[in-house]
């Protein structure tokens, strides 16, 4: 596991709603272990920021506008960042199965308690 003295894990937030990104940024930076290196509100925004900011982990709204339909949802992203860890966030709890099947490294429904987001981040962080 990476020690706490090394540089914080770089996280990219992708969600179409500003208030969600703002709340998540506040929430995960509070931990000290993570730093939000970029925010994206659309699929093309996401690709741009992935290339530009080189994150370790992407917290990805599974319903982000402009993404291809399942099961190709992650294909463009994997093209530019094959190794980035992806944690899918969704308002639809039923999306878990397809998100994990399509290669997301974690899944958190927006109706779960927020600490599950941290848990998923730490789980992915272990693999960074």
């Amino acid at each position, binding site marked *: 596991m990476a020690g706490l003295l090394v540089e914080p894990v770089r996280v990219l937030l992708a969600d179409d*709603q500003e208030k*969600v990104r703002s709340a998540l940024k*506040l*929430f995960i930076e509070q931990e000290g272990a993570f730093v939000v290196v970029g925010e994206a509100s659309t699929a093309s925004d996401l690709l741009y920021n992935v290339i530009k900011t080189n994150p370790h982990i992407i917290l990805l709204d599974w319903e982000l506008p402009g993404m291809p339909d399942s099961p190709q949802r992650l294909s463009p992203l994997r093209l530019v960042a094959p190794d980035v860890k992806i944690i899918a966030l969704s*308002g639809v709890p039923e999306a878990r199965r397809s998100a994990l099947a399509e290669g997301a490294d974690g899944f958190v429904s927006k109706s779960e308690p927020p600490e599950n987001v941290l848990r998923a981040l730490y789980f992915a962080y272990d693999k960074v």
Partner: protein
Amino acid sequence: MTLLPAELNLTDLFAVIVDAVVACDERQRILLFNKSAEQIFGYTQDEVLSQPLDVLLPERFVEVHRRHFAEFAASPVASRAMGERRPIYARRKNGEEFPAEAAIVKLERAEERLFIVLLRDITQRQRIESELRAQAQQAAVAAERSRLARDLHDAVTQTLFSVSVIADVLPRIWERDPEEGRRRLKELRQLSRGALAEMRTLLLELRPSALMEANLSDLLRQLAASVNSRSGVEVDVQIEGETELSPDVKVSLYRIAQEALNNVAKHSNASHAQIMLTVRPTNNGLAGRQVHLVINDNGCGFDTTISKPTHIGLDIMRERAAAIGAQLDIRSAIGAGTTVHVEAVL
């Protein structure tokens, strides 16, 4: 051309027809009653021969049927569909009524006239039709429900998720920086009010009759708060005059504002929008009131000469305006925002 064999018995022919075939004379005495008629009505031919046609009808229709029959008998018309616009009803031996389609044909030979009635029991067909209608209705309800579920996910879930995330870290933030803590608490308050507005707006979709009961200015304020919470677009509301309006005007104006703000949130990329509702007496001195609703935004606008399929909302607004006799005017240009004007004299 083949001639029909002279011995062909028409009774045999009628016996195999699926429709009931009933022949009668001018006095409506039954002369022929085929196998299908026996099955449909439950009488045997022997039971009804020489009986009046009336035995096959619900009693309440006997009078009017006689009149129609007499008219048809006296007319030069040779055949006619009965009950052209709606199904007629017939009566079985056990008294049960059933819906039917029927046609009547007149045969004239010298002084004598005979009538043949062809009748089809459509009980089954009507049952299937009504099942299909019910299925279509259920499908529409299901589609409506999944749309509402999606709206709940898109709107209220996002806001409440943000609320719960901020609330989770707030104690630690407060310890470290009370000023930032207070700022975040204010944000929480705004978010939760927004969630409430979003939810009340969605509840209106579940119970549209509530639209008619509420005051239009309250509805517009709630709509503005809901759109703001959902999309981040700031929406100002200005109301002037007495906004107690008739239910259909209220609902139409609300739907137009809703559609206009949907477009603002979805397509305009605007940061700011405005709803202005003005109700004042007409200035021509006549009784009545003039209602003016304006929705504008500072977004990217669109070319009004190109009607895109995504602008289906514009058609909805036009229909709503036409329904209350209002003038709808949409002005927009690329880069110059969009203004929707609705004007009606009540």
